[in-house]
């Protein structure tokens, strides 16, 4: 039973398709990114230097030629760091500058500080680094063979799945791969450090986590957190790539300014950025499942072998989330879900929109496709058969009860609106008459848990100032990376005060206004910061109500805020008049707000409790055509129905869904990271790494928000988080491709790994034809 959701009062600001707060500046080109900020006079520029090898002990480091190159002011090495030489977000192992040995190709050994960016880059090429090279572990198998891991194996289990699979009427086992993904935020990593009074430092940094960078810089320089300010007005995209891995470049800029006493900027060149920063984790996935003739699963066993790279970074949370979403929308009566966090001598993989969840779901969807193919059933029917259901079929592998399930209705609606059944028949007919072109269709569901699985990160702060002219300034710990967080939070504050959005000034995220924040990640930006800002606004509002009640001798309940005015009984005065009064009557017009997500109790050690406040749901139906002679693939049509609760801003939400889906589609179809046997990334530019462009869009792309009565949990205006889930809607494309290939030989599961590039599709097609 769904909880009763109170119907909200008519809203003036929330729920409106307001444009992005910086839209005007973006189209004029005067929105400032870090590299656009006017540099203080004498600003120096950094460039990173690294060895040719991938792994081994540094025998000698000859930087003489670098030092004497034109324009060079300083060359930084590990010995220049006064404090801790580590920028890890978790368990260490991420030296800011390599000290003694290197662990992956592209690891920064030194940094040049020069008068110009170009001079720094040229000088960086002049170093002689001698490394006693060791054989690098490049693949997950390499790491496994040497029993190298960055973190212990972790497992969820229920029942005796192995025995149950054996006893099941039918069973399947399979192994396949899921590729990684480069973030390719359009604005590369960049930070500008400016020395202040008395050893204090201000760092403008393009990051999702200003607080963490503040702490890391303080530790590196051996100064107090309070002496470091980190600020970010906006990022030119981030997608997880600036959660932990913006830190190194900020630290280096800060170190350069500490050593030289001058402002210093580090902006990574694109190729360096792609080589030196971590990506989405790539996986090998080995699984087996037992099921009956209807496709109903009795038990599942899956081993996720994740290539984590050379350090732990955020791999704990990422891989945990893979496990949390290995069930996607399906009930596994018995299961064993095991995650191996393998160490390799490659760049440390990191957060990427979905944070491990997408890989878990690619697995569950491949399993559904495999079962359907084996049984000759429609894959959608197999999916539905396994959906979470009522009591007895509502407990996830991690013990949380699914209480807000809307899959049946949502998927049912999409099945209708996408004309799924009719198109299934048409496609079957098409495939029979078409010798070389084959079509595939898939309708995949999505259930994504919202909250940081690391409990303490589920908190946020905000600071709201009301000025006597009635204008309002809002600040919070969340960062803006294009998702529209600032816009949504401003809408919330405007709503509280009943004023127009234009009267709310949004300011840059900075650690000296709101301290001790969590990263803007896990899709939680609005849930957390919107709530904190609302609480701050409510505090001020209640002071204003008290004041008005006193001044006008009236019941508090007769006071309300709307249309830039305050209704006080029969009287109506401008909002700005009351704020004037407040100042004269010595009432504070400033407040902080603090929010900690309730009802989350996950305990990782005992594997019990509730990790998520709620789930976001959605579904996508994709139709593709493949050319079995060339492996080429086009996406003919995609229909999406997605649940954002009561939308705070439908335009922004739809933007997140479209953008997330296309990003997921790129990950699963064209974006292929290729490392050579020495662990060097060979695809370090968009010329060799294929990011979707406008011409890759589905020919027919229909996106709709699910008509929701609102989140059953008491979230900000009953909305739901939307940042990450849409990425996983793209599993429908992968499934549709599988479906198209499977049409070649009924009953046989195509051997296709992700990404399904034309090359991989062609190989899978050939395998089907060869009769293997």
């Amino acid at each position: 039973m769904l909880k009763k959701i109170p119907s909200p009062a008519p809203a003036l600001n929330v729920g409106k398709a307001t444009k992005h707060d910086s839209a005007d500046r973006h189209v004029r080109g005067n929105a400032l990114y870090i590299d656009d900020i006017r540099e203080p006079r004498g600003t120096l520029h950094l460039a990173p230097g690294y060895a040719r090898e991938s792994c081994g002990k540094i025998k000698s480091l000859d930087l003489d030629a670098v030092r004497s190159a034109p324009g060079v002011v300083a060359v930084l090495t590990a010995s220049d760091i006064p404090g801790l030489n580590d920028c890890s977000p978790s368990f260490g192992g991420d030296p800011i500058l390599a000290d003694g040995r290197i662990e992956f190709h592209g690891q920064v050994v030194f940094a040049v500080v020069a008068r110009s960016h170009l001079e720094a880059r040229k000088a960086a090429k002049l170093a002689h680094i001698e490394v006693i090279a060791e054989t690098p572990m490049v693949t997950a198998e390499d790491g496994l063979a040497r029993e190298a891991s960055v973190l212990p194996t972790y497992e969820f289990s229920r029942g005796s799945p192995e025995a149950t699979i054996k006893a099941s009427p039918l069973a399947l086992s399979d192994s396949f791969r899921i590729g990684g993904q480069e973030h390719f935020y359009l604005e590369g990593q960049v930070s500008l450090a400016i020395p202040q009074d008395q050893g204090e430092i201000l760092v403008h940094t393009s990051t999702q986590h200003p607080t963490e960078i503040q702490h890391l810089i303080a530790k590196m320089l051996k100064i107090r957190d309070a002496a470091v300010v980190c600020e970010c007005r906006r990022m030119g995209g981030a997608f997880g790539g600036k959660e932990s891995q913006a830190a190194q470049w900020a630290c280096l800029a800060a170190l350069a300014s500490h050593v030289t006493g001058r402002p210093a900027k580090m902006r990574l060149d694109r190729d360096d950025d792609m080589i030196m920063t971590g990506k989405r984790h790539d996986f090998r996935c080995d699984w087996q499942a037992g099921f009956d003739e209807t496709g109903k699963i009795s038990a599942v066993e899956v081993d996720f072998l994740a290539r984590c790279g050379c350090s732990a970074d955020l791999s704990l949370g990422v891989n945990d989330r893979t496990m949390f979403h290995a069930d996607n929308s399906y009930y596994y009566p018995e299961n064993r879900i095991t995650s191996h966090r393998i160490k390799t001598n490659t760049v440390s993989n990191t957060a990427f929109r979905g944070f491990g969840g997408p890989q878990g779901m690619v697995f569950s969807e491949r399993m559904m496709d495999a079962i359907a193919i084996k049984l000759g059933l429609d894959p959608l029917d197999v999916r539905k058969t396994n959906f979470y259901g009522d009591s007895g079929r509502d407990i996830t592998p991690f013990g949380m009860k699914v209480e807000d399930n809307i899959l049946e209705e949502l998927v049912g609606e999409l099945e209708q609106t996408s004309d799924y059944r009719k198109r299934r028949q048409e496609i079957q007919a098409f495939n029979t008459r078409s010798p070389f072109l084959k079509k595939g269709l898939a309708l995949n569901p999505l259930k994504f848990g919202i909250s940081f699985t690391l409990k303490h990160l589920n908190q946020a702060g905000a600071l709201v100032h009301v000025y006597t002219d009635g204008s309002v300034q809002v600040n919070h710990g969340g960062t803006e990376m294009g998702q529209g967080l600032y816009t949504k939070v401003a809408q919330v504050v405007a709503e509280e005060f009943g004023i127009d959005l234009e009267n709310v000034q949004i300011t840059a995220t900075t650690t000296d206004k709101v301290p001790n924040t969590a990263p803007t990640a896990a899709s939680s930006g609005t849930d957390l910061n919107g709530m904190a800002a609302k609480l701050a606004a409510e505090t001020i509002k209640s002071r204003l109500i008290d004041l008005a009640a006193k001044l006008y001798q009236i019941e508090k309940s007769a006071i309300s805020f709307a249309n830039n005015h305050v209704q006080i009984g029969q009287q109506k005065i401008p909002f700005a008049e009351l704020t004037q009064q407040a100042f004269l009557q010595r009432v504070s017009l400033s407040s902080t707000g603090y929010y900690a997500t309730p009802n989350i109790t996950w305990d990782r050690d005992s594997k019990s409790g509730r990790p998520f406040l709620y789930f976001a749901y959605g579904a996508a139906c994709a139709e593709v055509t493949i050319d079995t002679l060339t492996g080429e693939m086009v996406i003919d049509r995609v229909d999406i129905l997605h649940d954002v609760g009561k939308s705070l801003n439908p335009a922004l939400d739809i933007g997140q869904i479209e953008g997330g889906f296309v990003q997921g589609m790129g990950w699963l179809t064209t974006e292929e990271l290729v490392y050579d046997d020495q662990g060097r990334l060979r695809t370090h530019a968009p010329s060799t790494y294929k990011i979707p462009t406008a011409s890759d869009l589905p020919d027919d792309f229909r996106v709709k928000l699910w008509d929701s009565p609102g989140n059953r949990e008491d979230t900000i205006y009953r909305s739901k988080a939307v940042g990450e889930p849409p990425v996983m809607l793209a599993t429908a494309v992968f499934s549709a491709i599988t479906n198209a290939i499977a049409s070649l030989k009924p009953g046989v599961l195509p051997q296709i790994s992700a990404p399904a590039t034309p090359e991989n599709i062609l190989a899978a097609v050939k395998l089907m034809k060869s009769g293997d």
Partner: protein
Amino acid sequence: MPTVSMTVNGKQVTADIAPNTLLVSFLRENLRLTGTHVGCDTSQCGACVIHINGESAKSCTMLALQADGAEVTTIEGLAKGNDLHPMQKAFQENHGLQCGFCTTGMIMSAVDLVKKHGKPDDATIRKGLEGNICRCTGYQNIVKSVKAAAQEMEG
């Protein structure tokens, strides 16, 4: 140091520059026109697109000297004071942007595209914007924006 002169956004500029100065650096650093962005440095992402003598060009892989004597328009020169160009207006109204980093180059490319194709259909727009990467929007609203702007633009 050689001297370069060009008209940028209607204003004559002349400067002594190192011969290897990229046009994008000249615009961003010498003229402080930072609306032209650098996304890839290698002619692939389109964040740096400007107009040279009315034609779109990627300014990251061009020397400033190559634009000597040319008529250059950057995003800052597209609006007439407070009046946005129809393409700018359309991107704003149709939510054709998120982080905004690709937006300026995208708009410059799109203006040229519409000039060349009149009222392009979806397929022409999608094809025509292949040289501009957007990592945020999924392009749907960008295509919508260009289509809407084409209706408003002359000829």
